[in-house]
């Protein structure tokens, strides 16, 4: 069953058609790579999927619910969650609070509970702390729990951003260049982490990345776009050998 279903998606910026008739289905617990040259429209597709931009044409369905026209925060509630090409953490909040903000909608107590510190408040907060701890454990961040996010090294910030996205309990995770700025060793670790979360959290993942080792190494299926249009689809191996892809993207 498709978690994400995109049909004939297009967006126009003035004279530029940044995404042009884009179609995609992502199945449950599938890991799909989205690659393409710089400026091909990958990030723009993410922005369309998450409600940051309104498509000029086309439809997007998450679990059979249309998301077009919904605000980003509501789309999160429908089960998608993302990271950003330029890391966007809550820099002056602790690592723990970064996760707990994302866990917000899954907590259930109202303002009065927080002012009177009711039992419900305590139980829910304790549960949130527990969840945060579990997530941080997975990402090896537990020791930084009380650090401010801005004080983490870059690689850890990337991981925290993924952890935060997971805390919303998504069915599909959209990762925008998670390995950017990492050295090969760190990238390798990241690959392992991505595989792990896919299995442990049972999510689908759509991933943008320029690091071919990562993309080819873990993606089950790859979609290649150029100038907003799909130029190839298929298994990593086939993509690696596709002439068009080599010409537009991989190089000799």
């Amino acid at each position, binding site marked *: 069953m498709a978690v994400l279903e995109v049909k004939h998606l297009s967006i126009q*910026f003035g004279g530029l058609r940044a995404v042009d008739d884009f179609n995609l289905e992502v199945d449950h617990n599938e890991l799909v790579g989205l*690659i*393409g*040259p*710089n*400026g*091909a429209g990958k*990030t723009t597709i993410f922005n369309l999927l998450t409600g940051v931009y309104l498509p000029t044409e086309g439809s997007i369905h998450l679990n059979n619910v249309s998301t077009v026209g919904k605000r980003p925060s509501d789309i999160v509630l429908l089960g998608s969650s993302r990271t950003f*090409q*330029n890391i966007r953490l809550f820099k002056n909040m602790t690592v723990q609070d970064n996760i707990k903000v994302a866990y917000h909608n899954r907590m259930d107590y109202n303002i009065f509970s927080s002012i009177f510190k009711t039992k419900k408040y305590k139980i829910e907060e304790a549960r949130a702390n527990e969840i945060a701890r579990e997530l941080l454990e997975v990402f090896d961040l537990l020791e930084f729990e009380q650090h401010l996010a801005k004080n983490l*090294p*870059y*690689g850890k910030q990337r991981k925290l951003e993924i952890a935060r996205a997971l805390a919303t309990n998504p069915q599909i995770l959209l990762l925008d*260049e998670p390995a*950017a*700025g*990492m*050295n*090969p*060793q*760190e*990238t*390798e670790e990241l690959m392992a982490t991505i595989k792990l979360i896919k299995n442990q959290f049972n999510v689908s993942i759509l991933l943008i990345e*320029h690091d*071919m*080792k990562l993309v080819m190494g873990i993606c089950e299926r790859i979609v290649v776009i150029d100038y907003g249009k799909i130029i190839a689809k298929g298994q990593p191996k086939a993509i690696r050998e596709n002439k068009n892809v080599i010409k*537009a*993207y*991989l*190089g000799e």
Partner: protein
Amino acid sequence: MLKVTNLHVHYGVIHAIKGVNFEVNEGDIVTLIGSNGAGKTTILKAISQLIDKSDGDITFLDKSLSQYKPHEVVRIGVSHVPEGRHVFPGLTVLENLEMGAYYRNDKVAIKQDLQKVFVRFPRLEERKHQVAGTLSGGEQQMLAIGRALMNHPKILLLDEPSMGLAPILVKEIFNIIQEINQSGTTILLVEQNANQALQISDKAYVLETGQITLSGLSKELLNNDKVKAAYLSA
């Protein structure tokens, strides 16, 4: 040409650079590799006087750089492509490139250099009148490099130029770096992509938590086991 001796930099109480020494000879490509937070960016910023060092000396063509104000460093031939691109988001691509030649007055030569940049990066010519803030990440990186070239630098400091670029462009960028170098510009290159960087450079230094732990000819480092393990995954 560029010589860094006993450099120390502090951010408040954080001692980010702890006594770094290295040298860049004229005509060379020198690579600085090291993991995240090792202090690579900090060193480049110290060279272009964007941040104050707490001790040590940096000389360029035998003159101490600390006698220059930050904006004057560019004028004596040091161009810096900063990490994170730092294009002017509200200016068009063309205006960004023109800013690169800000202190120059030779209109004709500027025109020619502009043409050269467009030849090197056709995408920039396509997007000439788009405001830089809406460019894609890779496009912005091209713009940042193109803009620095408009300076006609003697030495080019590049901070992770391949970050976020498509594979074909990464190759392209490293080719361009070599080309720029061959046309007479010395290059100090900071990279995560150690493999490629070491292949095109002459000398290299490995930086770990603010200190240089290894140095040598790039070819040798490529075969160094430690480097292989840490920075060049098989």
